[in-house]
């Protein structure tokens, strides 16, 4: 007990990275923006704000006005629904798609990359063949075929995005595993009797985890943008599944010629800060976790 009582606390590379991240003002600000979107999305999904977004509250396509209450700030859509409330609800859809599709793609990417990089040989050949094949099919084409096969809708879109977007991460993880598997600390673990799975998950994985975190952040942005694009193309969110920025932009396509700009403006203005914040935050993560700064 004498030793444990006087334990000296160490500085892990993670706590170092966190400290670097917290001292980066832009990163903290970006994180606050992301947090604000998450809070908004959660409140919207639990019907605490933007509750009556499906109700008609005024004239069809009424222009934005600041005198009729905040629901009218961004005007009304063709059915007289509040555009602002629809935008707030859209945040939930966007984050949902981002989160679920990332949760599908990240494990696939990590596992495929880790196995290919660690074992090499025919395992590597096979996995590399699979992801090269997938990445050679134009993404939209693949998404369209998955959407047709599984039926349209938000879940399908998440699966489709998840299934197609793991390739980049798998490549990165594979390269890192190839680099790390020849490091002496892995040889030391082998010499101590550590099994393959222990070497992969306990030893190498924590050393490449920063790539996963950065990859997650990056996927999120791509997924949010893809949701909008796919929905615009009619392959994503179905009408009736909730509000989505993609749907709003899709609607705006016809409305813009009539001078009705607020649907489009509202969706893009909502999308811009979260995409920017995620991109900046990813950059900051990359800087903070860069293992080259420390040995």
């Amino acid at each position, binding site marked *: *007990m*004498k*030793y*444990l009582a*006087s*334990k*000296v*606390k*160490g*500085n*892990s*590379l*993670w706590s170092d990275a966190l400290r670097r991240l917290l001292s980066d003002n832009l990163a903290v600000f970006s994180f606050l923006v992301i947090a604000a979107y998450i809070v908004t999305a959660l409140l919207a999904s639990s019907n605490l704000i933007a509750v009556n977004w499906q109700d008609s509250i005024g004239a069809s396509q009424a222009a934005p006005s600041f005198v009729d209450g905040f629901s009218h700030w961004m005007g009304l859509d063709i059915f007289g629904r509040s555009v602002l409330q629809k935008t707030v609800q859209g945040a939930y859809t966007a984050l949902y798609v981002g989160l679920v599709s990332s949760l599908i793609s990240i494990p696939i990417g990590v596992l495929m990359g880790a196995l290919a990089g660690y074992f090499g040989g025919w395992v590597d050949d096979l996995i590399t063949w699979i992801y090269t094949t997938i990445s050679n099919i134009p993404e939209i084409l693949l998404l369209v075929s998955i959407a047709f096969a599984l039926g349209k809708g938000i879940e399908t879109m998440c699966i489709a995005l998840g299934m197609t977007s793991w390739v980049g991460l798998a490549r990165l993880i594979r390269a890192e595993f190839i680099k790390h598997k020849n*490091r*002496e*600390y892995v*040889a*030391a*673990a*082998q*010499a*101590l*009797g*550590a*099994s393959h799975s*222990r070497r992969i998950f*306990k*030893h190498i994985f*924590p*050393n490449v*985890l920063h790539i996963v975190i950065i990859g997650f952040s990056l996927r999120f942005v791509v997924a949010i943008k893809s949701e909008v694009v796919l929905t615009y193309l009619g392959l994503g969110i179905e009408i009736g599944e909730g509000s989505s920025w993609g749907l709003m932009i899709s609607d705006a396509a016809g409305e813009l010629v009539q001078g009705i700009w607020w649907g489009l403006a509202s969706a893009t203005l909502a999308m811009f800060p979260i995409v920017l914040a995620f991109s900046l935050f990813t950059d900051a993560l990359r800087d903070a976790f860069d*293992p080259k700064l*420390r*040995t």
Partner: protein
Amino acid sequence: MADNEILLSIKDLCVDFSTKEGVVHALKNVSFDIPKGKTIGLVGESGSGKSVTSLATMGLIPNPPGQVTNGQILYKGKDLLKYSESEMRKIRGNDISMIFQEPMTSLNPVFTVGFQIAEVLRLHQGMSQKEARERTLDLLNQVGIPTPHQKIDAYPHELSGGQKQRIMIAMAIGCEPDLLICDEPTTALDVTIQKQVLDLMLDLQTQYDMSMLFITHDLGVIADIADEVVVMYRGDIVEKNTTEEIFLRPQHPYTKGLLACRPALDKHPKRLVTVSDYMDVDGKEKTPPKVEFVNPTRPISETENPVILDIKGLKKYFPIRGGIFGTVKDHFKAVDGVDFQVRKGRTFGLVGESGCGKTTLGRTILRLIEPTEGQIIWKGKDIVGLGADEMRALRRDMQIIFQDPYASLNPRMTIGAAIIEPMEIHNIGANKQERLEKAATLLERCGLPGNVLNRYPHEFSGGQRQRVCIARALAVDPEFIICDESVSALDVSIQAQILNLLMDLQDELDLTYIFISHDLAVVKFISDEVMVMNEGKIVEMADAETIYLNPKMDYTKRLLSAIPKGIPKTLLDKGITTSDLGQ
């Protein structure tokens, strides 16, 4: 020109680095002179400020975090610290050149070496392409590159480590600098190559009448090359004198410790003296313990020292692939039919230059690499072909300590987690608590406080990390440990401590070692039997004393003669030996 003309004079130089933990005074009022045409040796351990001194002279202190807070660096009477960046650029590489430690990374891999040398000449001397190429050929000749007409168009990866360092030297002397700063230029090289490079530098210095500032952690290296020695310790100059005086009559306890801690070939102390025997942590002088000399050959009894490892005809070939379909064209024979026996409780030394196959042999014995052919008989049982589970169980008995303590610890694991991991794998200890207790005891046994289990590897120095690696290897109570260049990456003073630790542990735990190193002096000190390897084959094998006294093969003789004598030649000529130094 007068003989005693001062070329560079450093006066009261102070350099601070600001870190998260506060300001670190890297240099505290450092003053010394470099006379024209002389060589000054700057000696000290890692972190003593010797590299900072050279960087300050070149105007290369990174700012922030570093800053020169006081002092002058007078070059030909003018203060370099007052020069602008563009003025310094004209000085660098032209008047003052520098050679770095790592020749592997100092050359740009995408350009030919000829191009890289010529670039410096064209930049500083304004030579035409043709003139520069001719001068480059001339330089390659001077630094002893064979067939310079071919090598001028070679890329760095086509040259050996020694040749690359020669290229760096050619580049540095190309503009005939007045001052050449050499920052540990031979530390990364084998002894034989080190000797060649040192001889070359000595020749060039006389030829060009250059001044040199030679930085090293090893006093033995500069015995023949330096005219004067400046000893640095923790940012201070603790002693400066002529080389002979430093070796004959060292004043400061740190210098005495440095001189004494290098294992010598002609004497066999029981333990190596370390710097801490000469001074305590505050730098106060202590009386060192009397050195106890022992009979270098330990007796062998068949009952107590049976053969526990018997290697028979071991081969490891790596395929060389070529052609469009990657067919195997040939084999690289890293280990080519090696036979030897290791006895319990004894140390088997394995020595050879880089690339001779000694590391591959070590790893093949533990089956970290699968052998191509041959038998590895551990306690009467051939372990080649054992299944994964049986092999894993065997790893309890056979351990390895690697060369680079920075690379062999997982940076994401606390050292406590690293030490208890093998206990978890092999079910040693009843619970985590018990394992942590054992880990703490092991750490203390290896000379570290037991309460640092929660710290991470990057919070320790190189020597401390190597102690952690030793503690980790001991966690499974092994009988047999392969030490693969385990002290090569450490400063001589730290090296002595680790060697002592390994010897103590052997006595205490009846351990058996295979000690792999390129340094014959270290191998001779720690080993009972020594095997010299070259190109995958055994050159010579005998007990340590015999190999040193009566080497039979030319290769062994060459290795032996290349070892720095650790004493200036002028003193050797007067009949003074290393045993007389510092006493």
